[in-house]
């Protein structure tokens, strides 16, 4: 965890700041009322809030989840891994992948790596348990399931050009 500086704001609430590796300061003002302000500090005057965005409690939660990745999915990943020795991975299909554009049957990912694709997520929506005719469109996300080494190999195939 990064070091968070907490400062009391009497009558208002509290302010929390972090300094990024690049030397910028970002903070949150937590009002007693539940309101949150997202604050970005000026590059040249690090004490000045050059941007301050007012968020309701709900908006703050949403933004927090977006910034923290998706804790729900990470938890799921961990649980499956621990219980069954299985990995679930979300892989974005690269246009340079040798499998890009092929149908699932043509790609034969399971035969090549031992890992299977249990869902495809793209602009047109998500396809759970896709059949062999569905295509691996570049930019779509494939949900890959299998043993850790199999998922690793599949990920390599879907994201990289052949060496």
């Amino acid at each position: 965890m990064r070091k968070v500086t907490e400062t009391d704001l009497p009558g208002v609430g509290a302010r929390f700041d972090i300094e990024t590796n690049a030397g910028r300061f970002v903070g949150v003002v937590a009002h007693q009322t539940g309101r949150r302000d997202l604050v970005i500090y000026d590059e040249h005057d690090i004490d000045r809030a050059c941007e301050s965005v007012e968020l309701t409690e709900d908006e703050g939660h949403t933004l927090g989840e977006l910034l923290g990745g998706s804790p729900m999915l990470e938890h799921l990943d961990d649980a499956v891994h621990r219980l069954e020795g299985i990995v679930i991975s979300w892989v974005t299909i690269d246009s340079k992948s040798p499998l890009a554009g092929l149908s699932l049957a043509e790609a034969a990912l399971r035969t090549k790596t031992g890992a299977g694709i249990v869902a495809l997520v793209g602009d047109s929506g998500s396809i759970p348990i896709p059949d062999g005719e569905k295509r691996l469109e570049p930019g779509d996300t494939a949900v890959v399931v299998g043993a850790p080494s199999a998922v690793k190999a599949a990920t390599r195939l879907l994201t990289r050009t052949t060496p």
Partner: protein
Amino acid sequence: METGGDLLIIELGAVVLGLAIIARVARRIGVPALPLYLLAGLALGEGGLVELPASTEFIEAGAEIGVILMLLMLGLEFSARELIVNVRRSTLAGIVDFVLNFAPGFVAGVILGFDPIISGLLGGVTYISSSGIVAKLVADLDRIGNHETSVVLSVLVIEDLAMVIYLPVVSGLLFGGTVLSTTLTVAVSLVAVIAVLAVAYLLGDRLSAIALSKSSEALLLTLLGGTLLVAGLAGRLNISTAVGAFVVGVALSGEIVSRARGLLLPLRNLFAAVFFVFFGLQVDPSLIPNVAVAALVIAAVTIVTKIATGWIAAGRAGIGRPGRLRAGAALIAHGEFSIVIAELGIARESDLGALAAAYVIILTLVGAVLYQFSDSIPLARRKRLIGDASR
């Protein structure tokens, strides 16, 4: 009697409508409305453009309620714990603030030939910044997140708390007789303040729970009645009604606070405006030319000493030069407390009222403008210094 009643309503309507116009103008040109309310009060009443024979008495009562509501709302902002933590953390800044800003008023009072107690009141007038105006400026300019803002708020809290001691002491001095009886009065009032604060600290939660009601009407009446009663008793004990109301605000905590704010805010806005008008009414505008030069000089000196206070306090918190200047500029605005203090001595020294009115009008306007534009003031080596600080 019938016509008298009508006249009262007509005068009140005209005054309040006049204040409405002032509030709109202030908003349009981007300055606090308080100094303009004072000006309106100066223009009215004896020696002014229009006298208010029927409504002055009512306005006077409204003004007292205005002070009580302002202080109650201020107290609601803080919890007892917050106050204690703050005093521990910012004692030094608080002392610097007091020394630098009490002195100009006190010395000026002595030079002007006021007696020591009135000089002490003038010292109080120059010491205390307006937490109300400053908090509003900070929010309006979106500077709550700024690093120096925590320093500014801490200084303001200590000033407000200092009033809890200062007001009973000066009331005791003003209304006491012999040295012995005065000392006794002051001692009694200080003990009473501490006792009330202790009760607030220990029983605040329980009192809040008792006062809470689902009915807005019942809650409003409970808050208003309870606060007026405590404030009135505090006034009787020479602790000052303002301090009594502040302590009630501090004592309340939890759910009741947010509901109380919502219920009391409209009332506060009305009666606070009435308070400033009433203060203006009491001041004879013909005295203003006599004190204008003194007010300008004292204002100029305290602009410098307040900026120095903010500069030092923010510097101790590790804040860069532009932030230190902003902290100083934020503290310039004087307002409600300065007027509350001056009002104590107005009967004894009418020049004090005129001086305080002129002083507050100048400082509030200058303070609002300086704080707004403090970022445009170029500071030597600004960028380099800040760049260094972030590495």
